[in-house]
Structure formats: C-alpha cells, structure tokens
C-alpha cells in the first residue's frame, strides 16, 4: 500500500514544509508493529516526488480483527490494498498536510495550487474505470490506471491542479469508497474525522448520494434518513408477493375454524408466524427454523408483536424437515411457505414421507414459485434465488402433487397467488393437502 505525491510548479519544494518531512531523511514510524515509511524521489525547486508506504505486520493485523477466524482471514489483500486501513495508518504522518497547519511562515502555501499527480495502489475495487472517472473528474482530475488484466488490482493516478491539503482530503474520502471491502478496522471516531475532510467539496459533487451510499459502510457517516430510505425501497419490491402469500395462507386457515394448531416449518425471520399469532382461532403456533440468525431475528419480531393485545407467542423450535421431532405430530396445519424449492429432490422425498406418514397433519399447505412466470421477470434461465434447487412449472408441480396423493392418504388442490398471466399463470403456486378421512 502506497501513495506517491508528485507536484510540479514554482516553489513546489515548499511541499516538504507542508508535509513536515525532511527530503534528505528517511521517515519511518512504527504503529502496532506496522511501519509507515516516507521517502523522496525528486526534490527540486519546481518538482517534488514523494512516496509514503506501509509495511504491515501481517500477524498483528489478523490478531486485531477480533472475529472468529476462518482460513481466509490469514491470506488477505488488506495487507496490500489501499483502504481505510492504509489511510488510518498514514493519517498521523500526514497530519500537518491534511490539517493545513504547517509552521506559521508556510501557512500561505497551504492554499497554493500546484500541478499534482497522486498515484496510489493497489486498488481492489468492483468499480469500473469509468466509475472511477465519474468520481474524480468532477474534482478536476484526469485519471489513468495501470493493471495486468481486467480483474486485477489497479494502480491509479489522478492528475490535476489542486492544493496538497484538498487533494489529500479528497483521497481520504474516496479511497474507502472505491475499496470494495468491509471495513473491519475503522472505528466511529475515525469516521467523524473523515467527515470533516468532505467539507467544501463533497456537497457539490454530482455523485454525492452515491458516494454516501458506498460510504454507508462507515457507521455514523451517513444521515439516518438516507439509510432508511434505501432500505424501504428495497423492501417495497419484495413485499407485494410475500404479502399475498401470507394472506392466502391465512384465508385458508380461517376458512376452517377447526384448524387451531399450526406448524410453520422453515419460519425464517418469523413474518408469517407473527401474522398467525393474531388469528383468533389459533391456539398453538410452532415455528421451526434451523438458522441461528433467522431464529434471533424472529425472536425479536415476536417480542415486539407481543406488545400488542391478542398475540399468541409462537413456540420457536430449532429444527428442519430433515429431522424427526415428536412434538410436530398430529397438528392441524403444516405450512411450508417458500421452502420446498430450497430442498434437493432426494431429500424432499424423505421429508414429505416424514410429514405425511409420521406427522400426519390435517392440512399441509405448500407454496412454491411458478417457473413459467420467470419470463415476466426477465430472469432468463436463472432461478429466482441462488439457493433454489428447483423451480417448477405448473405441470411439474401438478405431476408432483399427484405422485404425493397417490402415495399418501391425502387429497390436494392447487391454486395461484399473485397476478395471473393468461399464458404463464401466477408467480406463486399454492397446494393444499388435506388428510383423507376414512369412511
């Protein structure tokens, strides 16, 4: 990780005072085992070239990260890439320049404009070179990159007329925006200080909102309402179909008042179970989920729902349809809402056997995507979710349902959820299996 500052222009050698670094000495400073080094390559009255780089202590880098480690943490581009980590390590060495506070006699030069080139790298980014230009051009820089192949790390040079302080401050904001890494190593205090660096230019930047969005990774850097806005937008798209599924399931349950004990298998973060908790006839909800993250989310959701009157707290169970659980036997409703398409077909077979032969619910409700509808989403051949093992057409679902009703003492009906396309059906299909009563 390195940054080379190349300045041309009359009195360019004043830079050594603005940086407070002697041109004929090597600068080295140690911080937690990491070494910050600075040296000059050129130093003439009209031209100065100076490089600052960091030799990272790889071991203490790992030790500081404070998370549960897997093997990938040890081989890490953080040791090399310019990033917020790099910036936080060199910041105090460049403090004089960043703060614009050299010795009093050089103060006037803080605002002195030179012809600057800032070169830094390696840069690991998911942004295109075009994206990078969109970031730097409005600030008056031209940008060039050096790289091996299309996906290789970049060495970036931005050139333009600016002051040392302004140029550095802009880099201190934009480098973390470019870097595509989760920022493990930055604390909130750091973020506040960095916010200062945006003063006077960031507000006018045409990519301002986008820079903020990328900088979301910094806690506290962004106003809360912007975060909220982005989140709401994202949820809006999803909501429609989910809502319809839940409504349909609830409609089925409410149409038969004797259905009181419900299992929500694969309950995820508990959205459906929360709704079920408000149904008047329901006397028991068992929400089964094997993921820790989702279980914790659901727990919060239920606790919040419980603040309202008339909420029946779902019982959370750790498990899945691949494990037998005595407590799931002979309930009224067994729901698999958007679950089966996540199951490999061999395993699904065994799971259905468990449900229909051991658990024997009165009703089993299953929802799953209709593959035919994917064309309308312009998904091409790909599935709706990376974790889907399959998506069925209406005919495929029908064939499967018929196989089930042949094997087990259940009858079934299929219907649609969501807007129906006359050619391709609805986005979601729903099957209701009902236990056949022996006459």
């Amino acid at each position, binding site marked *: 990780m390195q940054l080379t500052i190349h300045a041309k222009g009359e009195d360019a050698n004043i830079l050594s005072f603005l940086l407070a670094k002697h041109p004929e000495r090597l600068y080295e400073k140690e911080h937690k085992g990491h070494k910050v080094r600075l040296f000059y390559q050129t130093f003439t009255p009209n031209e100065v070239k100076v490089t600052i780089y960091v030799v990272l202590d790889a*071991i203490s880098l790992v030790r500081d990260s404070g998370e549960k480690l897997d093997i990938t943490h040890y081989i890490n581009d953080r040791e090399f890439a310019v990033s917020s980590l790099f910036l936080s390590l060199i910041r105090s060495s460049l403090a004089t320049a960043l703060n614009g506070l050299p010795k009093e006699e050089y103060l006037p030069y803080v605002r002195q404009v030179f012809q600057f080139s800032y070169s830094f790298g390696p840069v690991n980014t998911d942004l295109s070179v075009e994206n990078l230009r969109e970031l730097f051009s409005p600030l008056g820089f031209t940008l060039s990159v050096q790289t091996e192949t299309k996906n290789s790390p970049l060495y970036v040079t931005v050139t333009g007329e600016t002051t040392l302080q302004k140029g550095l401050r802009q880099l201190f904001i934009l480098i973390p925006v470019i870097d595509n890494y989760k920022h493990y190593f930055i604390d909130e205090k750091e973020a506040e200080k960095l916010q200062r660096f945006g003063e006077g230019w960031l507000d006018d930047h045409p990519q301002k909102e986008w820079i903020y969005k990328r900088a979301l990774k910094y806690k506290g850097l962004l106003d809360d309402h912007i975060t909220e806005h982005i989140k709401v937008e994202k949820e809006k798209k999803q909501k429609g179909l989910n809502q319809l599924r839940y409504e349909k399931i609830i409609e089925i349950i409410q149409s038969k008042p004797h259905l009181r004990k419900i299992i929500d298998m694969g309950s995820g973060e508990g959205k459906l179970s929360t709704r079920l908790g408000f149904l008047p006839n329901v006397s028991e909800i068992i929400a089964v989920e094997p993921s820790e993250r989702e279980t914790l989310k659901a727990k919060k959701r239920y606790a919040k729902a419980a603040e309202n009157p008339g909420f029946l707290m779902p019982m959370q169970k750790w498990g899945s349809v691949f494990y037998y659980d005595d407590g799931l036997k002979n309930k009224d409703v067994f729901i698999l809402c958007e679950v089966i398409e996540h199951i490999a077909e061999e395993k699904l077979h065994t799971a259905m056997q468990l449900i229909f032969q051991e658990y024997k619910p009165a009703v089993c409700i299953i929802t799953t995507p209709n593959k035919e509808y994917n064309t309308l989403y312009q998904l091409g051949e790909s599935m709706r979710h990376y974790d889907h093992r399959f998506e069925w057409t209406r005919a495929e679902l029908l064939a499967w349902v018929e196989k089930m009703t042949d094997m087990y003492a259940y009858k079934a009906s299929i219907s649609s959820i969501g807007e129906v396309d006359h050619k391709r059906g609805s986005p979601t299909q729903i099957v209701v299996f009902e236990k056949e009563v022996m006459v």
Partner: protein
Amino acid sequence: MRRRITLPNAGVVLLVGPSGSGKTTLLQNLVDSGQIKDSEILSSDKYRKIVADQEYNSVESTDNKMAQILFEQYQRISKEAFELLELTLEARCRLNKCSFIDATNINSDDRKKLISIAHRHHLPISAIVLDIDLDTLLMRDNERVFPRGSKRIKQQMKRFQYHKRYLKTEGYHQLHMIKELNHSVEIERMDEVPPIDVGAGIDIIGDIHGCYTELLHLLEKLGYEENEQGLYTHPLGRKFLSLGDIMSRGPRSLETLLFFKNHVNNNLAYMIDSNHGWKIYRWLKGNQVTLQHGDELTAKEINQWLATYSEEEQKRLKDEFIQFLGDAPAHYIIEDKGVPMLVCTHAGIKDEYIGKKSQQISDYCRYGESSSRMKDGIPIRDEWYHHHTGHMTIIWGHDPRPYPTTINSTINIDQGVVFGGKLTAYRYPEKSFVAVDALKNYNGVEHNPIIEWKSKRLLPPNIQALIEGFRIQMEEFEDVSVKGKYVKPVIGSLSTADTHFGQLVYLPPTMSPVPIPSQLPDYLEHPIEAFKYYQDNGVNQLIVEKKHMGSRGILLIFKNEEVALNYTGISNLGAIYSRSGKRFFKKDIEERILTVIQSSLKENDYFGKYETDFVLLDCEIMPWNLKAQDLINKQYELVAESAILDRKILDQALNESMVENQWLKENEEKLERAESFQKVYEKYCWEVSDIDRIVIAPFHILAHSGRVYHENPHTWHMTHVEELSNICSIFRRTEYLLIEDESDWKQVINWWKEITEEGHEGMVVKPNQFTVWEKGKLLQPALKVRGRKYLQIIYGIDYLEEKYLERLKKRNTKRKQKLALQEFSLGIEALNRFVKQEEIGRIHECIVAILALEGDEVDPRL
C-alpha cells in the same frame, strides 16, 4: 466322628456357640489341614485385640459396682471390635470372598445383622452350630489361660439355648449342628458360579427360540460336526454356550431342549437360565403359570411327546427336564488364563451381581431392567448396560436387535432368528461374530421387533436427541460429548446440505500437523519431528504418503440402485460429498462421475470379488479450483496480484530514492516471495472442461459390506488403491514410501524436500498399522508435514521472515490433536454403525458430533 460340610467359596459362615464350645479350635484345625485360609477367619477376639490390645478382660469382681464398670468397659470394646469386623466382612463380601465369623453369635439379633450383610451382597450364609453340654463347657473353661468364669458360661449357655430355636427360621442356606466335642469336620468348597475356562475356545449363541434347523446350520458354520452318538463336537475341542431362551415362539422347541440337555449333560455345551426357560421349568414342576408368548407352543410339544411314554417314563423325563432347567445358572463367567474375560447372561446383569447367586440376581438376569428417568425434563431410557463399567465384556440376548450391538463393553447377540432375523454366535477368543439367516419369520408381523427395527431404521434422526448436546458411546473408543451450542449451527448447516442423511455415513477427521515446530531456523514444519513423535511412542514402521492438494471428498458407490435403497433409503448410485457433508459436485456432474466409476467397477467384477454391495472411499479430489475457485479468485489470486503490483511499483520508487536505504533490498525479497506464492497455488489449479479432467485420489478404503478397514495396514490400502486406479482412470494412485526404522528417515526427508520445493503440499506420516494404541491411549493416526512453500498460502506470503516465524513456532497443537483423535474415533464408529446397517439416527449422531467438534475454535491454520 467325621462331618462333611459343603461350603460356598464365596459367602458368610457363622460359628455359633458359647465360649469354650470349640469354635476357634474347629477353625484352627481347618486352617492347619489346609482346608480354609487363616485370613478367612474374622474372630471377635482378634478384633478386640486390634481395637483395644486385649482379647479378653475379666468382668468378674466381688464388688458389684466394680463388676458393672468392668462390664461397661468390655461392652465398649466389643462394640468397636464388631463394627470393624462388620466393615471387614462387607469388604470381603464385595470382593466375593468367604468369611468365617468366629464369635459366640448366640443372640438371634446379632446373627440377623450378619445375615443381612450376606443378603445385601447376594452371598449365601451358613451356620455351624456347636451345641455342647454345659458340664463340658465349664470343664474346658477351667483349662483356659483366661477362664471366662462359670457365671458367664452359664449365662451364655442359657441365652444360647433360648435363641437356638430361631436358627431354623433365620434362613441359612446350610445349617450344621455339631453336638460332640471330638468332632472332625471336613470342608468341601464349592464355587457359587463356577467359571468356565475358555479352553480351546467358546461359541456363545443368542436366543434360539426353537429354531432348531438354524441352530444346526450355525453349529456347522462354526465347525462343529455330528458324531456317531448324534452329538455335535468341534474338532478343536471348542464348546458352545447358549444364552437361554432356547425354546418357545419357534417351531422346534422340544428338539432344541433335548439337544441342549444332551450336550450339557455330556459336558459339550452350557446353557444359562432365561425367562422362557424359567417359565417352562415352573410349568413342568406343576406351578400355576400362564403360558403365553410362545410358551404354550413349547408346552404343547412337550405334552404330545410325553404322551407317547408310560406314566412312569413321563415322570422320569419330566424330572430330567426340571433338573436341567433348574440347574441352569443365572450367568456364567468365562476365564482366559485364569482372568475373567466374559460374563454371559440372558437379559442383563449388574456389575455387583457378577459371580454371585441369589433369587434376586436370577430374576434380574432373566428379565433385565430398564427404567425411565428424567434429566432436565427429558425422559431418558435408562438401560442396565449404561451402568456397566470396567473391561469385562457382558454377552447377552433377550432383547432382539437386527445386528450385534456393542455398548459400553456389553454385546447383545440376539438377532431375532425367530422373527426372521439371524442367529448369532460370538466367538471367543476370536471376538468375532458368525451368524446364519432365519429360514423364515416364525412369528408373524405383529409385534415383530426385527421388522419394526427395519422399518424405523431409515426414519430421519430424532432432533430432540441431538439439539441440547449429547454423548456418544463407542464400540472401540472413549466416549465423546458435544455441547448443544456447537450442535445447533451444525443442524442448520446440514439442513441446507443436499446430501441425503442416508448417504452421509462418514466424515474424515481433522489432522494435526507435526506437534513440535521444526528446530531448524528456516522451517516451520519438518518431517523429523513427526518421525520422532511416533518413535517416542514405540512405533517404527511408518508410511509417508504424498499429500495431494485438492479438496477432501467422500465417495460412496453402490453396486446398484436397489441395494442403495436398502442401505440409504434412496435409490441412486451413491454420493460424493465434502468434509462438511455438502454435495461435492453439482448433481448432474456427480451422477456422471458415479456412473463412470460404477460401470468400471462392475465391468471388473469388483463388487463380486470383494463380496460387497458398496465401496466407501476417503479421497482427495483435484484440481483444487473445483471447490476453491471462488476462494482462489477472491483470495489467493487477488492477494498475489496485489502483493506483486505493490512490491513491483515500490521497487521502482525505491530505486529512485534520493537517500540510500535498506528498504530496497527488503522489498526485493518480499517481491520474490510474492512471486513464489503465486506459483504455489497455480500448481494446484487447472481448467476443468469436462469430467475427464477431474482426478480422484483415494487413500483409505473405508468400508465394504460388513467390513470396516481401519485395522488393515496402509500398505493394504495403497495396494487396493492401485487396483482401483487400474480399474478406472479417474482414480489416481498416491506416491508413498515406507519407513522401517531410523535409517530410512534421511531418504524420506530428501523426498519431502524435493516435492515440496516443487510446490507440492507436503506429506502425511502415518503408522503403517492404521490404528495404534500406546499404553491404552490412541495415537495420532496421521500427522501432516507441509512444505515450506505451501505454507505461504496458509500462514501468509512472508511467514518465513524471522520475526513471523519466531511467533508462529509458539503455536500449540494440543487441542487440534485431541480433536483429531475424537473425530477419528467418531468416524470409525459411524462406519461400524453403517456396515451393521444401524438406524440412520445412530450414524447421524456421529456425523453431527464430528461437525460440532469442528465448530470448536481452533486455529484453522493448523
């Protein structure tokens, strides 16, 4: 006059009689004539001496008060003496010893106390009563060194006579009354449960239930031959032993009974008591019993048979049966070189019952015991065998299971032949099982334990038995416990895996690197430390195998879909999965690979040659990028390119530096290392355009039908791999070298250096024997020694820099080693359970345990 008294080898014998009746003399004679041991006598006088330095003190005095005080003193001493005596007696009872109580024992209450001790330990109690007339006693007392005095003798005599009447009702196994002074007693010692010496070997047979044909098949399979008298004898002199329940339910109970009666009487076989045997015994004796559970069939057979005889003959035959069944002991102990190795019982036994005999023990051995208790609100079925400790193996039947089940040094060999299962024999000293299939199911479908087992075998694992943590008891290894907090994420992860639980039958253990870092300055790991580890543990013959750099994969391939369905519950050819239990390839690619392998194996009659329905292989699957492409792109490639770019550009800049410095040289070295790093992993990657570019290197043949190969030497495994690689080109051999002793070390080290300098990962050092124990502890089954270059992709590009290496050498592999052993044990246990076709849940708990152990926070670089 001579008296012949039969006494148990283990038990309590009370001597009863007033002072001077000759108790001590009688015992001393027995000691002198070598019939009993001195140490078997617990004498109250001796205990008085132990606690108070005096055997006896006179309580006679003219002064009443003085006499009272002396008596009080005597009582205090006696109290302490008896307490100590009883403690000793209890200890001896626990150890199954015989004890003669040399005290007056004239009070019935005193005797009852001792009787209850004997009962508590299920030992027989006898009494030898010396009923001598008063005149003789008084005369003898006068001759003593410390006469007790006539007053006390008279008192004692009075009490003795008074309490004598209770003797008959106190419940002695034997009561001997001796009235003459000059008696001579001869003792005959008897074992309560006489141990069987293993002799030429013994074959223990599970519940037969009248399956006479199967019994004869089994005996023939075991090598027994019918002689002219119709008796089955073994050419080597082996004997067979039945665990009882030889009759009822099945078709030919009478013949089986006659067969055993005959063989037991001819000293060719043994049979122990059992619930059905006891029922038939009582029925024959004319007791009121309800004949059910097939006993009615036995009774019918016997009645029909008896009807062909005269009344007199009938009585004789009946009595013979009664004698035969009544004599069957509750359990047998089998000794090998005088050491009790096996206990054979029908339904179960408690450890403290072993070697003893009582009504209670007999009942326990006939019916066993199981109860339910609650632990943390969860009912736990508490079977007797969970409480067995120690190394004596208990062989039992009664409770049919589809396969011999080993739990906690107990082995159940009732495989429900009468229910259509198998008739099993356990051979000792071979410790092997031989079984024959039932010709048919004689018991119908209802309440058929074997059919119930089979139908339930493929049920999904019960989550309640796993989720809060659990403990696994293993056939060959120490128990392993896993905590709920580690289990939960595993359940989550396995729930998203595509591998069907029926196919997920093994996961490979983690492997420890060399436990001690290299003593050489520029190496972190070096083979010499691995060789020394094994040498220090007494293992010289080692195998070193080249470590392929790919991804670990488990390969399960069945002969055909039908047998697969039977084993796993799904009918496909098998599965290939990673060490986390996830499907290794996409489904269609997996199918293609399995098809290629299976058809090659079939063409070469592999399944026929090895008489197996499947083969299970532990492999490395290459190239590395098959599984690791994402990791390579996002991690290694990016890191390498970043490092090289960074260091190259810095190199130019430092070259232009105005001030001369060391940084340039330092950076040059770093650049070199970055370039070497890039070459390391490039070697492990190649493009896979089709499955013919995939290479599978098996290194353990884990299992075939009914067999787990963890005791076959690695050289066997390597030869077998060679055979596989000749059969199917997807399989690759693994290069290896053998080490016989220290002189081979150097050559192996050179080889290691050579291949690792080329960038190969390194090698694995294993004892050729596969599973090795040293002083009762399992040794590491393998240690990895990774190359210097390879370790760059583990520890970082610059790990060999002195400042890093110094810190890295402080690494601790203890935890890793422990995990490696536990996971190894669990893997073998899973295999054992799989080849026996135990329930999926029993196999799955091992899998969950391995993954849960992997969830432990251990440095992943080890």
